């Protein structure tokens, strides 16, 4: 008897396509309960050995994966499954539920242990803003857009850039 790859408790009755650690699609055995939690209706009635029904389920999952989208970068979960790479830091929040079984399989854990980011966060964000403005300013100067350059210089001053360049 194959056990469910998500909960590890129930018997797996379904195969679902998922990502492995190399970013390739691989089959995952899932129990009816976990499949329902992922929002798939009527899956209990499906026989796992039926090719046609599996294909239908697959396309249903694919369609559903396309609808899970990161609001910040626009990447869909389906896109992530194809490419194996996330679009931005926010994707981890957007795909939180979907990533859990993947992380568990890759790492055997879903909670970080170890070094944390402690200091300098706010300062770092300010620095990034300063950096953005510096790049803009350089571009403006190169393009001889002095009006814009002057405005950017003011913003840089306000953003606390001591160099004033």
């Amino acid at each position, binding site marked *: 008897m194959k056990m469910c790859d998500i909960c590890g408790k129930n018997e797996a009755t379904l195969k679902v396509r998922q*990502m492995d*650690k190399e*970013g390739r699609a691989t089959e995952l055995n899932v129990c009816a309960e976990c499949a329902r939690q992922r929002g798939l209706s009527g899956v209990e009635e499906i026989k796992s050995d039926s090719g046609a029904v599996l294909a239908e389920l697959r396309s249903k999952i694919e369609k559903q994966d396309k609808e899970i989208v990161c609001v910040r*970068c*626009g*990447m869909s979960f389906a896109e992530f499954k194809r*490419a*194996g*790479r*996330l*679009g*931005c*830091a926010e*994707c*981890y929040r957007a795909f939180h539920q979907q*990533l859990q079984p*993947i*992380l568990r399989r*890759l*790492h*055997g*854990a*879903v*909670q*970080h*242990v*170890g*070094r*944390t*980011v*402690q*200091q*300098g*966060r706010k*300062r*770092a*964000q300010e*620095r*990034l803003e300063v*950096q*953005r403005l*510096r*790049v803009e300013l350089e571009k403006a100067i190169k393009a001889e857009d002095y009006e814009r350059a002057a405005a950017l210089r003011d913003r840089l001053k306000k953003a606390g850039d001591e160099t004033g360049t």
Partner: protein
Amino acid sequence: MKLVPEKVGAWLLGTGPDSEFVISTRVRFARNLAEVPFSPRMKPADGELVVETVRWALADSGYLNQGQLFTDGMLSEPDGFYFVERHLASPDFITQKNRKGLYVSDDETISLMVNEEDHIRFQALASGFDFATAFSKASALDEKLEGQLSYAFSPELGFLTACPTNVGTAMRASVLLHLPALVLTREIEKVLRGAYAIGLLVRGIYGEGSETRGNLFQVSNRKTLGQSEAEIIEVLTSTCRQIIDYEHKARQFLMHNLRVEVEDKVFRSLGLLRGARIISSEEATNLLATVRLGVALGIINELKIAEVSQLLVLVRPANLQAILGEKMDAAERDERRATFIRQKLVR
């Protein structure tokens, strides 16, 4: 910007602990900026922003004074492979098209890739089996950068990376082992399977997808989430210690039972290297690795481990071209390589 091709990194000096068995120890961290899209969603302006932000962070933290930041032109194919061969950059980094930067410290023990798969990937290399040095050097840079940059981090998942394989500590720690005796005694498979079973990864000398040449194996952690940096290094240290002990025993076995055969193999390799007029990079690597074993076993006394380890890097195509200062086709290179090795091995 200038390369110094004849000078090899301090990590290749062969002075570290257990140099007879271990070429180098490496600790690498992946970090991303919270506010910037990851590589798959990156626009040219984002790439530029990351490169420039990192340039400032390196300058402000004093690192830029002790090294160089190379940018696009020098990092493209085929020139960029110079850095790959020196273990300072990955092949993927050289082939990818986004705006990129590579920082290399003067002694080549620290390097940092901007816009590889993650915004920032930096490593510290130490000679021999020496996690203490590699880890503290990489951590020191991490702390400096953290004060300057806004890392993408979540308390639940740790450092957020473009690929979920690296999330958490986002740390990859590895040891480059030279295991010829385990290969000769056919024990290697067993050892490597054992390492894999406890969650480690074994790969060839140039990382992912590369073949195992010269009996050189890179052992690293596979998992990054749920284990602290210290725990990961502890497991790697104890496992590699065991592998080194196996290799040591296998070498003793060979010396007691098959001494003449080993000597024959070693001196034939040295003879080929000293006599060849045409030699490929692959053949040179394999022969040099056997000579390295001979030096480690005291069969060859006229050479030092460090000399041989350095040659392993210098005979690679891009480094050879950099040393000779001209572009060559493969056939010409094989000829010049043979001459170069002969000159280096002459006594």
